[in-house]
């Protein structure tokens, strides 16, 4: 099969032959298909999991909405939604119970006559921001402490992991409440509180993988080349331990969104008149008894669907990267 060899014209003959036979071996082993890289392979298996694809689509839609609102919030108008989310209009709220969904207000209006659809869209921005920023803070801390803990072992490992145990031992919501009470309410404090509490999950998860990767020969090879510890940890070890972390990120963003909703529901998260899904659920809950179901329903559905999206995508990603489930 010399016509398949496109690479051998500058080399000596025996080398050409060896390359050819090696190439044939690869093709035999993989049934004529070149082996795929980690991501191509993961994507191929993820595509077959319909639930995960639905999750990915949901994430894409909500991220797009959140991003669009984020960009719009920098413009003079301040929002992209059809109505001003904070514009009070008592004409649209007879008896203070809002008005049901209509063509001009598809999600209805709330007790102050504000457009629920616009508020829900704007709230998407806050929820996405919380998910992304809080998880980023948690990752930043976790992916520095985790690899260091696993790589050095010994006393360093004990100190970091026992600290993580303390974070795990506290009831989560109680701990967030504590931090929020100290810091006071506000958007950035929400990011910070959720982020600071999330690091232990990533640190512990990553430490486990680092323990196995640091024993690999290529780590020793890097050391034999004269690479420093930090270079070995963050360039050679960390990238090889990321697959489980990606899954945890997808799940973690969903979790952070729920936590923000819970905080806002308890009144120490986002402050009025800003809208977040949790804040809206908290505000509108009391109107359910009076028959104004639309106020509560739409933000709740958005919240549930988004979290479902992140979790089903995370699940699919885990299955797709799990070597034990490979066909």
């Amino acid at each position, binding site marked *: 099969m010399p016509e398949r060899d496109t690479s051998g014209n500058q080399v000596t003959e025996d080398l050409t032959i060896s390359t050819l036979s090696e190439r044939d071996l690869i093709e035999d082993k993989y049934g004529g298909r070149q082996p795929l890289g980690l991501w191509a392979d993961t994507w191929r298996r993820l595509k077959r999991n319909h639930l995960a694809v639905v999750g990915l689509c949901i994430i894409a839609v909500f991220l797009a909405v959140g991003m669009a609102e984020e960009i719009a919030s920098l413009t003079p108008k301040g929002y992209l939604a059809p109505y001003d989310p904070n514009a009070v209009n008592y004409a649209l709220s007879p008896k203070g119970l809002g008005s049901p969904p209509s063509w001009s207000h598809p999600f209805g209006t709330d007790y102050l006559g504000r457009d629920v659809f616009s508020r829900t869209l704007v709230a998407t921005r806050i929820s996405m921001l919380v998910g992304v920023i809080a998880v980023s803070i948690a990752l930043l801390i976790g992916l520095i402490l985790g690899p260091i803990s696993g790589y050095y072992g010994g006393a360093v490992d004990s100190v970091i992991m026992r600290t993580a145990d303390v974070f795990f031992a506290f009831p989560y919501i109680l701990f967030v409440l504590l931090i929020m009470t100290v810091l006071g309410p506000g958007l950035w404090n929400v990011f910070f509180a959720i982020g600071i509490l999330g690091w232990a999950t990533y640190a512990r998860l990553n430490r486990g993988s680092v323990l196995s990767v640091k024993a690999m020969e290529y780590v020793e090879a890097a050391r034999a080349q004269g690479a420093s510890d930090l270079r070995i940890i963050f360039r*050679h070890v960390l990238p090889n331990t990321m697959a489980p972390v990606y899954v945890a990120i997808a799940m973690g963003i969903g979790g952070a969104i729920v936590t923000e909703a819970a905080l806002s529901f308890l009144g120490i998260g986002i402050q009025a008149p800003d809208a977040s899904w949790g804040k809206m659920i908290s505000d509108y809950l009391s109107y359910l008894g009076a028959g104004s179901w639309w106020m509560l329903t739409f933000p709740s559905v958005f919240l549930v669907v988004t979290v479902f999206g992140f979790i089903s995508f995370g699940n699919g990603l885990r299955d797709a990267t799990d070597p034990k489930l490979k066909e």
Partner: protein
Amino acid sequence: MGERLLTVDGLSTHFFTYAGVVKAVNGVSFTLDRKETLGIVGESGSGKTVAALSLLRLIPDPPGKVVEGSLLLGDRDLRTLSDEEMRQVRGNDIAMIFQDPMTSLNPVLKIGNQIAEAIMLHQDKGKGEAWRMAAELLDRVGIPDAEKRVNQYPFEFSGGMRQRAMIAMAISCNPDILIADEPTTALDVTIQAQIIDVIEEMQQRYESGVILITHDLGVVAEIADKVMVMYGGRTVEYGGIDEIFYNPHHPYTWGLLGSLPRLDEVEKTRLTPIKGQPPDLIALPGGCPFAGRCSYELPVCRDQWPELEIVGPGHGVNCWIPEAERREVRATLPHFQAYVR
């Protein structure tokens, strides 16, 4: 031979574990000159790799520790260098090729990236320059289409090509000493010969000293200038390549030679294995570690380690068997040429 690169004297490396002290290397001495190839031969657990890793101070500490001996690189004592100085030695002065090319390359980094990293660690080169050198090196170790290959990941390379890439990485900073730790063990026999050729070629080109760790006497016969035979963490015999093959003095060397397939046997004959298992390095016997398995064992063997006996120019052996008896056994061994390809 050229200038003296490395002088190892009385190296002992022990591992202090819960189960006891593992005496992996005990009083090993050797030297290496420029352009010279030293073969370290012995079975698994004989301390070959630990001896080599001790040179690079890559023994995990704890539990491992170089407890004795001097390691001189030129006139610098490797044992007293700071960690920072030692990092400069690694890769730059002493480079290592590892056993299994399938696991010695980082799967998430491009081949070129890994070679370029070695270059940038030790030389004042920019990224573009380092990548160009990486492609050149790949070409030099016989990887066709190096310009394209440099941008590929290890999984796109076959075993033989990965080992070539490992060699390229090891020679990237033109090291004085190249340690090859069983570089051919994980490869096909046909590829093995090519890899040995590449190592030899690179040695000629860069005028390095090579330490070749292997249990394949065939490989040693091909490229080594001198051989150190290790057993149970000790050097049992040490000598020039011809001395070891034509004139072996230690029963363990005889055993190794006897277990090789013969090229001159027309009829099928069984190989002669060395009976028994290597000793437990935690509970090493006081005397010769080979005593329990040696067919020529004397009463003194189990109690006392024999002094080094010089039996020829640059040829030493540690054995209690009297020379007269050794000569008799040697006469029955097949000729050296019977083993060489």
